[in-house]
């Protein structure tokens, strides 16, 4: 290979590391340089092979739990030694908690149920990440995924592909969460998967909110008598964005 640019620019071009002027002048060069064109074709074939092979291997679900469990916790012993002024703090904290407790008393009544449901969703999410459990119907085509749910559940979850916004549809599946059959839409987000659980609102109290557990974030909302819960190890902002996309009609 004698072309100097194939050594200095080709890979940076392939990897999107050239700025716009450099990229465009390299593209002009490609039009006239056979060597660079065929070298680029080779590199693109290799990249396509990576994309096809899906070699990314996710951490086993057990590892996350093992690590969370083995992180040393700040004990009350060390906290006591560290904070000599703990009594005023404790009194203030108790007052604050009493106040918050009173404020949220009515809302807090269904809280334990909510936590249980969040845990059930987390379990279902972890289960789905085991090999072969992610999707029952694997397709990026919403017109394939949506009809798949027909006849399997008595509601129609909104199925749309948001690839243009960075959330490509991966597929769908049925799952059972807390004894209830739910539809699950699976979206990709960079290297992460987002599971969006959808079920019919049967409970009179809306189940909404967000939270985090074991390095996963979840975000729940209600729309048109359906409950949604998105969960992923992607950042919370991604879940917000996906919620906006799903809600926009």
């Amino acid at each position, binding site marked *: *290979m004698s072309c100097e640019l*194939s*050594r200095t620019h*080709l*890979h*940076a071009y392939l*990897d999107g*590391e050239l700025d716009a002027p450099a990229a465009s002048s390299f593209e002009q060069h490609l039009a006239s340089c056979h*060597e660079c064109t*065929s*070298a680029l*074709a*080779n*590199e693109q*074939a*290799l*990249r*396509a*092979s*990576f994309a*096809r*092979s*899906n*070699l*990314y*291997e*996710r*951490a*086993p679900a057990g*590892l*996350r739990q*093992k*690590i*969370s469990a*083995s*992180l*040393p*916790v*700040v004990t009350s012993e*060390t*906290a006591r030694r*560290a904070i000599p002024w703990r009594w005023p703090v404790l009194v203030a904290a108790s007052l604050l908690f009493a106040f918050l407790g009173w404020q949220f008393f009515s809302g807090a009544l269904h809280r334990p149920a909510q936590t249980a449901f969040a845990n059930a969703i987390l379990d279902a999410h972890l289960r789905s990440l085991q090999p072969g459990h992610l999707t029952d119907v694997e397709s990026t085509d919403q017109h394939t995924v949506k009809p798949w749910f027909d006849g399997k559940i008595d509601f129609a979850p909104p199925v749309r592909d948001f690839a243009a916004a960075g959330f490509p549809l991966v597929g769908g599946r049925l799952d059972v969460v807390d004894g209830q059959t739910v539809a699950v839409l699976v979206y990709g987000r*960079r*290297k*992460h998967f987002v599971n969006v659980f959808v079920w019919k609102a049967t409970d009179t109290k809306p189940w909404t909110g967000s939270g*985090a557990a*074991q*390095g*996963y974030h979840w975000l729940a909302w209600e729309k048109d008598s359906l409950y949604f819960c998105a969960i992923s*190890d*992607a*950042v919370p902002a991604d879940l917000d964005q996906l919620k906006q996309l799903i809600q926009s009609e």
Partner: protein
Amino acid sequence: MLERNDRVRFEEIVLPHLDAAFNLARWLLRGRADAEDVTQEAVLRAYRFFGAFRAGDARAWLLQIVRNCCFTWLQKNRPMEDLTELQEEFLPVERDTPETLAIAKSDREDLTRALEQLPAHFREVLVLRELEGCSYKEIAEITSRPMGTVMSSLARARQQLRQALLHSSSKEARHEL
């Protein structure tokens, strides 16, 4: 001793990159069981040093710790492992061959085999770029290489990988005959 909210912060900004950590370890160590052990060790180490991490790219920070743990582990447990560093100078790229076709036909198994044949430092840059989608700047940070050598390292690693792929596909062709 870390404060309680440091633990929460750690769970929020570092643990989401556990898949990235595991994936890198799996390809560097070529096995899931060893990768699990070393990932756990690396994350606990990250937790101990979390006080020193204040802001910046949490994924790159964690991956740097993971790869260092992996190379230490390889030196100790796989003394025969090829830990040749990537040379900075370029190998001349071979002339046009019908390799595009052979690469286009390669499947997951071919690619896995070819990737696992490469020396660990070659696997590392390929996994970071092609699987993890890291930028040159991030790769430089994770591998403690100067930014300027990341591209040439990648170019060499890709060339090696293509050769390994071609080698395995020509062997298969002979086998079929």
